[in-house]
């Protein structure tokens, strides 16, 4: 028995909608079996995992906090990947954005002006963009592979942050512990509603996603991205420059990662410390693909992935499912979503040896 794929003439609208649901169903079934094998009540476990976090207001706020950086970075990366530029160093751009954005509150803690926050956000975006500009420069100038350079720059950024907060930027009143002074009130990204902690980063994420969706769908720039991504040659005939596209996509994704970085530091943490991200820059790559590189899809996938983090925590606490199992579960979900998406573009046939092909899925 083997599996064969046949390209659909047109993208299947039915399966565009059905595939995530199918993936979810498969995850639920497999998850239930896994929890059952571990001696846990499967329905209860799934309820704690997927439903409980959505029932309380504070938890929804937490969902928004967790999803915001994933969406912000993810939509930028989506444009990058669509144009065939492989920036996988968003984690580094996130870190540098957090650092450049924090220059003002760290160096001028007594500057109480409403101007400080917008300036910080802009500086964060500029920092992230400039850092993404390094692989762009190397790619356009020396033809250096951006996957590798952007990845290497992640480690350098993290070590630079580490050096900074353990030395130059360390809070002199902080018993020598590696963190900066807490930001002044004016430098803290405010909360959206009074009912919880969610701050403006989530709004930025939604705005960015919608704006990029609009660009990709209705603007010439979006067309340019798709054409160059599919074929550089075709792009050249249309008069587009692949070199300029490298710059555009890298700077854009860098700026958004930088914005995510400074928003996280300013809104969620309130000071700079050696670890500011649990790998948002890498997780966002998965988010981008789960969202099928579509900015609106990325809003959904960002929220789903954030939910698995929250659910994993709730399950660990209330029914004692270890965080390793949660990670395995997360991995399963990703695999199912990725494989079900195949149905959008392809028909799947099961071929049993010696018999005629059997059509299994429409």
């Amino acid at each position: 028995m083997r599996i064969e794929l046949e390209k659909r003439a047109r993208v299947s609208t039915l399966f565009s909608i059905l595939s995530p649901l199918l993936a979810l169903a498969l995850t639920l079934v497999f998850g239930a079996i896994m929890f059952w094998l571990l001696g846990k009540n499967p329905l209860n476990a799934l309820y704690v995992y997927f439903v409980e976090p959505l029932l309380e207001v504070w938890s929804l706020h937490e969902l928004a906090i967790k999803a915001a950086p994933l969406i912000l970075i993810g939509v930028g990366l989506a444009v990058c990947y669509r144009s065939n530029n492989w920036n996988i160093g968003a984690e580094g751009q996130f870190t540098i954005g957090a650092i450049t954005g924090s220059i003002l509150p760290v160096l001028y803690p007594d500057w109480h002006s409403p101007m400080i926050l917008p300036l910080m956000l802009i500086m964060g975006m500029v920092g992230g963009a400039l850092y993404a500009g390094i692989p762009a420069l190397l790619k356009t100038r020396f033809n250096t592979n951006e996957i590798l350079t952007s990845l290497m720059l992640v480690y350098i950024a993290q070590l630079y942050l580490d050096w900074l907060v353990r030395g130059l930027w360390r809070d002199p009143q902080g018993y020598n512990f590696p963190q900066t002074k807490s930001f002044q009130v004016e430098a803290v990204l405010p909360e959206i509603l009074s009912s919880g902690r969610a701050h403006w980063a989530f709004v930025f994420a939604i705005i960015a996603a919608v704006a990029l969706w609009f660009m990709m769908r209705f603007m010439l720039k979006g067309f340019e991205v798709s054409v160059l991504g599919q074929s550089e040659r075709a792009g050249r005939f249309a008069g587009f420059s692949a070199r300029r596209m490298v710059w555009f996509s890298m700077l854009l994704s860098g700026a958004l990662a930088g914005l995510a970085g400074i928003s996280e530091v300013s809104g969620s943490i309130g000071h700079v410390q050696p670890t500011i991200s649990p790998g948002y820059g890498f997780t966002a790559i998965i988010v981008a693909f789960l969202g099928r590189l579509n900015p609106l899809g990325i809003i959904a996938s960002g929220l789903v992935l954030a939910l698995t983090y929250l659910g994993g925590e709730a399950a660990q606490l209330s029914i004692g499912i270890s965080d390793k199992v949660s990670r395995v579960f997360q991995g399963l979900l990703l695999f199912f979503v990725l494989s079900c998406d195949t149905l959008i573009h392809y028909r799947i046939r099961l071929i049993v040896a010696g018999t005629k092909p059997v059509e299994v899925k429409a």
Partner: protein
Amino acid sequence: MKKLIIALAASAALLGGFSTGAQAQEKKKVCFIYVGSKTDGGWTQAHDLGRQELQKALDDKIETPFLENVPEGPDAERAIERMARSGCAMVFTTSFGFMDATVKVAQKFPDVKFEHATGFKSAPNLATYNSRFYEGRYIQGQIAAKMSKKGLAGYIASFPIPEVVMGINAFELGAKSINPNFKLKVVWANTWFDPGKEADAAKALIDQGVDILTQHTDTTAPMQVAAERGILAFGQASDMIAAGPKTQLTAIVDTWGAYYIKRTKALLDGTWKSEQIWDGLKDGILTMAPYTNMPDDVKAMAEETEAKIKSGELHPFTGPINKQDGTAWLAAGEKAQDGVLLGMNFYVEGVDDKLPQ
């Protein structure tokens, strides 16, 4: 399949009322949040052993749920808030990086008690606790000076925070109390946890001629390397004798259990109050693993020093002590203030390293 259906049916029945928390009403929840994995072999594992000890001691009165591998930052704040909301009466946050998150959640939940390890911010419902690891390091230094033929030890350090610097200094002071010319080489691995890198650091130090190794990182890799190369070493956080039966001289063992039991009892009695606790050898918050692989006279000396520290007769940071550059720090007989120790960012004389700034 049939079994599965039965299980599903049974769980559906259970789901009906969602009263899974009900049967645990009488038991108080004492919760723990860990920065690493509970089986990391080091820092977090020591806390989890303490939690298990606590659970065993007060099994009929409490439950001890925990969250592991929680990143420092906003995730920690959410995790701690989740604990407070899920009915935890007391929450132990066991990493320095959880400090601000703990402070914020403590403000929101005045009725829940919080205890933060190794930090310096407290509140009426937020206590801090720490262990005087340096007491053990001082004893190790003395043993090293007796056992080292070259008068040179190697120290694998993680990050230049006060805690680690304090440990290095205490080790050097202990060694110098036996051999005034004792030297200490330090290598910063810049990680708490990377067996490979820790092993490489150990090899580098041994290749540069040290014949005693001590570590302030979490895995047993350096102990294994020391065993392979036939030199002696000290364990960290837990008894690492299994990794080096003929190598380990002693180890600083974090025994948080005694503390957790003490504080939980106080909570149950209603006598809990916010304190800034910095316990030492005498309180049992850290213990020395058996003194092994050394002659009896060295063992006797180590035991005597341990007894003196416990009785308060000996404080490792007692003058005269000079800083690394030779300037005076403590006058003869003067003892270091706790505040100075907790913010320590300089070496004492004899440490052969430049402190990263």
